């Protein structure tokens, strides 16, 4: 099976029956597992199943930049609200923060479990991560209720400062509300949870 990144014009997609993509970028070696647009739509940032990250030109489909900071599959990529940076969630138990244009590696957030999804707060120096076991291996972990947690890290210090319990299974997707006052998580258990932050969350500061 060959893998492609397809660029489609949204207006055309919706209005016509002709579903031809505007641009089709083949990638034969390691399939793309997640992708986001660059800040000015000039390139697509794609994460691959081997941990690679590539910048594909949106005009030609050529690779503009490439890096390999993760050792295992990239599960999710999400951009910051201003698209200047993005965070990757990987099966190698880490999430990493990168600059969208230069692909410079800025920060790393470490856990002991595969990270399925990560997001950057629009208003605070925080990132949220969700993950857990692979669905097949869930029975080997603690069967305690609500063990799967969303974890909050300080973006500058790379230190975890909070966890939110509640999901009965691995978390597959996390996202901050655009106003930064709440976040949502969706899990293998079939639930979507929406949490509003209390005042302490906004006042909290690590000892400096």
């Amino acid at each position, binding site marked *: 099976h060959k893998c492609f990144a397809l660029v489609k014009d949204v207006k055309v997609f919706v209005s016509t029956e002709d579903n031809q993509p505007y641009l089709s970028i083949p990638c034969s070696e390691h399939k793309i597992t997640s992708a986001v647009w660059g*800040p000015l739509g000039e390139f697509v940032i794609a994460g691959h199943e081997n941990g690679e990250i590539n910048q594909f030109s949106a005009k030609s489909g050529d690779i503009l930049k490439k890096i390999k900071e993760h050792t295992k599959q990239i599960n999710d990529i999400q951009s910051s609200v201003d698209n*200047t940076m993005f965070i990757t969630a990987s099966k190698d138990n880490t999430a990493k923060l990168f600059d969208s244009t230069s692909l410079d590696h800025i*920060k790393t957030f470490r856990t002991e479990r595969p990270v399925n999804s990560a997001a950057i707060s629009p208003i605070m120096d925080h990132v949220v991560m969700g993950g857990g076991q692979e669905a097949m291996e869930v029975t080997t972990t*603690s069967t305690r209720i609500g063990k799967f947690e969303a974890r909050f890290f300080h973006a*500058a*210090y790379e230190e975890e400062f909070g966890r939110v319990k509640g999901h009965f299974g691995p978390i597959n997707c996390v996202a901050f509300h655009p106003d930064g006052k709440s976040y949502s998580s969706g899990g293998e258990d079939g639930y979507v949870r929406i949490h509003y932050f209390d005042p302490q969350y906004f006042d909290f500061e*690590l000892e400096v």
Partner: protein
Amino acid sequence: ITYLTNLSLSAELLDDILREKPQEADGIDSVVVVDNVPQVGPERLEKLKNVIHKIFSKFGKITTEFYPEADGMTKGYIFLEYAAPTQALEAVKNADGYKLDKQHTFRVNLFTDFDKYMNICDEWEAPEKQPFKDFGNMRHWIEDPDCRDQYSVIYEAGERTAIFSNDAKEPIINEERARWTETYVRWSPKGTYLATFHQRGIALWGGEKFKQIQRFSHQGVSLIDFSPCERYVVTFSPLMDTKEDPQAIIIWDILTGQKKRGFHCESSAHWPIFKWSHDGKFFARMSTDTLSIYETPSMGLLDKKSLKINGIKDFSWSPGDNIIAFWVPEDKDIPARVTLMQMPSRQEIRVRNLFNVVDCKLHWQRNGDYLCVKVDRTPKGTQGVVTNFEIFRMREKQVPVDVVEMKESIIAFAWEPNGSKFAVLHGESPRINASFYHVKNNGKIELIKMFDKQQANSIFWSPQGQFMVLAGLRSMNGALAFVDTSDCTLMNIAEHYMASDVEWDPTGRYVVTSVSWWSHKVDNAYWLWTFQGRLLQKNNKDRFCQLLWRPRPPTLLSIDQIKMIKKDLKKYSKIFEQKDRLSQSKASKELVDKRRAMMEEYRNYREAALQNYQEQKNLRLELRGGVDTDELDSNVDDWEEETIEFFINEEIIPLGDL
């Protein structure tokens, strides 16, 4: 049809055939010489020959015998030829040392051995002097000013081995090497050496920089054991073993690197096969109906012969004295019994008869003050198995024995290492109970306390006594209970999910619980606790396999010196507390500085990115047809605000008379 017209035999085929060629030499390999045979005249020769034949035909078929004579009497030595060399070897192995009567103990040797010994050079050549290898201070780690103990960690599924110094805040790395060992590591009993395993043999490392001290070549080595004095190391390899040259087990001298002796070994199921006396003077092993005790440094059998003990099932050395305890099961109308034997005199100090025995296990207290024999019996007239603990008081005259009867099946038993208490886990899941007993001086054994419904399958005493951890490892999901046995209180109950191992540090201050990759493939980590059960650290390590504390050598302090230090403990406490506070604040300061630097770096990056973003605003407006998408409220005009009212509640509050 094709024919082989040119018969060219390969070298291999030729070898095979040649090997089977009858050789003149074969005959000599099957001959043994027996010395110390009685010298008899012709009238008793027939009888002598019958006796010899009876004894020696046990090992094979005797094809020829020769009784040299001089002056009408046999000379006192004879030659016997067997049908095969293997039979001759059997004769040497089993008949050498055979006592015919008070004056005649046979010495049996292979005829070919005489040849070998005759050819040894008469001139003795002094061995070449080896240059002195200075490995530095082998006890360097003990001199750490903060008294940090070291431990080894194997992780990345065995690819990496590291040595850390233990600090309550976080582990301090001393050394880390890739592929340092191929399977696992072992520390020597006094902590001087770290042993690593390789296909070719084992290596010993030590000193401040963990240089390679010694190497022992033993292809396919899989198990090792050290003598308690660290003079010898025993290696086992299932690969190397031939009848002529037993090499399954080899005993090495650590300092010189010399191979001292090789032994045959049938199965390594109960390693260590050789058990050492506490002072390293003797080592012994058990085989069918036999207990063989060897002495060092000669590596020869004590008194040149093994002990014949019919039915011997198990034995062990006292950890404090050169006394061996062993037991034999019932034999017809002779009851089973446990025997304590003094070495090297072989004097039986104590014998205890036991009735209706199914099985016995020997448990020595670490100083050799007590021996507990766990006896499983089926009392007459019943079907079930009950367990007794027979407690031998080794320090009292004539070694009195007290019995503790247990009503339930035993899961675990452990002596307090340097005290007179023992703990027992008994019962059946989920009703497992933990009982604590005290062996008192007045001849009584008192049950101090029993905790019921415990999630535990293992007992771990602190090496200094008094404190202990009851753990439910593996299938019991890592339940932990920290107990102070001075008053049998539960200090803390905790859990390390799926813990597979518990290891106390040698000082009894810290406990490590760990989840090994060898038993569970996720959450591999080791956690550090205080002896009271307060969790200090969680150390995740990719595919963590094994943690072993480095043992400490015995203290150099006399008992009086220790008493003095304990008396002045308050004075030392003050100094240590001050030191701790200083290092705490230093750590805080370091952390604070680190955080400040990280934040500054991040801020700088964000400022530059933001500036760039603002400079690109026009580009963005262009791309989006003039629509400003930068802020949430950038396009308020596009929004429609709707206010909806819900009726929630009605409350009528009387205002009183106005």
